[in-house]
């Protein structure tokens, strides 16, 4: 003990104390905090109960304690389970920070937890429920192409690679998005995307669009016959590539042509 007090003015003493304090608090919290990984339950009322708990821990700071919405997040009354499954299942929610658009990131809830959250949100008000697998089964690719170009291509680009919107918002790429999430996005209209309800775009048409997207954005099904696509983003990347790489190569060749040839004698 004497040794320890003798070293209390050591330059690293403060650091050691800080690390010790942090480790103690963290350890105690880990030991006593209630476990948040809830088990999936078959009972509907239990999953609503679990979903409510998850909601209050993870979502209520922005969406309000009972999903009524605050200035940081919209109300979740009436958005339905499909919206929850899309937002949480693609990692958009819980949001990391406010901004023009919440990007998709690593999914942090398990599907069982997402289902519990969806069950809870569905009790707040009627809304579209999570679709079943036969609802988003792939339809007719050709018909889907027509519908995609009428309804989706303006923002998501003719090849589904996304594009810019106003003030930092953007339409994300559709490559690698699961059929279920595409279906839910069309049904619920997440964030600034407008909704395409079954009344104006029947379920069969949504299935056709899903088939088209899954075909078009899959390079092994829809190869790039012309070679390098540069992201299928249209004239901006193509022009940039032409100006920087093609013109750069031409300038390099021009310099080589005009360069002085080596002389027999060093001057």
């Amino acid at each position, binding site marked *: 003990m004497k040794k320890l007090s003798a070293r209390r003015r050591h330059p690293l003493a403060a650091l050691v104390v800080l690390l010790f304090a942090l480790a103690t608090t963290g350890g105690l919290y880990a030991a006593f905090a209630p476990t948040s990984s809830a088990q999936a339950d078959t009972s509907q009322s239990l999953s609503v109960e679990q979903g409510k708990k998850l909601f209050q821990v993870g979502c209520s700071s922005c969406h309000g304690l009972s999903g009524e919405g605050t200035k940081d997040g919209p109300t979740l009354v009436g958005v339905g389970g499909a919206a929850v499954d899309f937002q949480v299942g693609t990692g958009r929610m819980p949001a990391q920070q406010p901004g023009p658009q919440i990007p998709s990131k690593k999914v942090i809830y398990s599907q069982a937890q997402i289902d519990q959250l969806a069950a809870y949100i569905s009790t707040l008000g009627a809304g579209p429920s999570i679709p079943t697998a036969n609802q988003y089964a792939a339809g007719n690719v050709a018909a889907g192409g027509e519908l995609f170009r*009428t309804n989706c291509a303006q923002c998501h680009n003719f090849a589904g690679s996304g594009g810019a919107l*106003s003030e930092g918002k953007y339409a994300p790429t559709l490559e690698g998005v699961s059929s279920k999430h595409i279906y839910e996005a069309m049904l619920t209209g997440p964030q600034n995307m*407008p*909704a395409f309800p079954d009344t*104006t775009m029947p379920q069969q048409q949504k299935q056709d669009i899903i088939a088209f997207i899954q075909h078009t954005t899959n390079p092994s099904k829809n*190869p790039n*016959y012309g*070679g390098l*696509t540069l992201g299928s983003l249209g004239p901006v990347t193509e022009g940039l590539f032409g100006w920087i790489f093609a013109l750069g190569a031409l300038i390099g060749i021009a310099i080589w042509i005009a360069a002085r040839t*080596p002389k027999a004698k060093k001057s």
Partner: protein
Amino acid sequence: MTSQDNMSEEHLPEAVGPHGGAVAVHDDPFADPGLPPHEPRRTDIDERAAARAERQVARWFILSMIATVGFIASYVAIKPSNGDGTTGVIYIFTLGHISALNFALGTTLGISLFGIGAGAVHWARTLMSDEEHIAERHPIESTPEVRAQVFADFRQGAAESGFGRRKLIRNTMIGAMAMLPLSAIVLFRDLGPLPEKKLDTTDWSAGKQLINMNTNEPLQPSDITVGSLTFAMPPGLNPDDPNADPTFQEVIATSALLLVRMEPSDIKDAKSASWGYDGILAFSKICTHVGCPISLYEQQTHHVLCPCHQSTFDLSDGGRVIFGPAGHPLPQLQITVNADGNLAAVRDFTQPVGPGFWERS
């Protein structure tokens, strides 16, 4: 000696020695230093180096020949890829899955063209003469004698024609020349009919139902939920087979509609709200800048963005332009619900849709 001989000799470039004729005057700091002394290249003095350079040039040309043979061979041998990408597709790193035939044709043609170019440049740089010569320009102005002669001839011609003295001839000739282009204007005027009122009107008129472009069915207010986006067209069109109806493209180019629904309390413009039905607003889909179809609708901000030049319209505020080059708000179609419960137009657009034009106020 004829004058022709005289001219040609006079305009020949001045003969200058291979190392530049001008000798620098030492007391002039800005004097033309002339060309640097010519240094021979290795290929100029070493016959073996020259022979090696010759072989290098030949190698480029032979590579080009091989690539051309490869081009023809791959055109004959490689099958084009079929539509579903199951045959004739290869994976190339950085390029992804691409057509084997296109890749082979592009690569071989590129090599054969580059081989000719590279061979020619290498030839010029190593074997062709690299001695620089100066050819001085002759003055552009003619000699004083020729100039004096031309002026004298012109004055004599003007005096003999009487152009300055006989004013009647001069004035009637100017009049005839000025009248002549009128005949062209008459012909141009007759090339086609005037647009008349075509640009001011669309296919919409009182009572026409709004038809959903996806389902080809009339729309009811309950079909359109808040935050949704729907595209509508006038009745009587068949979008599944546009070729069957030759007027389809013409009608859709002016009459395409963008239907959105927002909470009535979100609509800032009272007139715009009254022209809709319970928060359902129908706007022209044609940008008022240069007529691009616009439908990049953000349902939370109610902004619609034009992909061509980023004109942005606020649909909650009567289609007002909030950004970009568009000069007019997006025209709104006044809609109501008819006896069948379907959405229908009250009348045509009250202002021309699409970009501005000459007579547009």
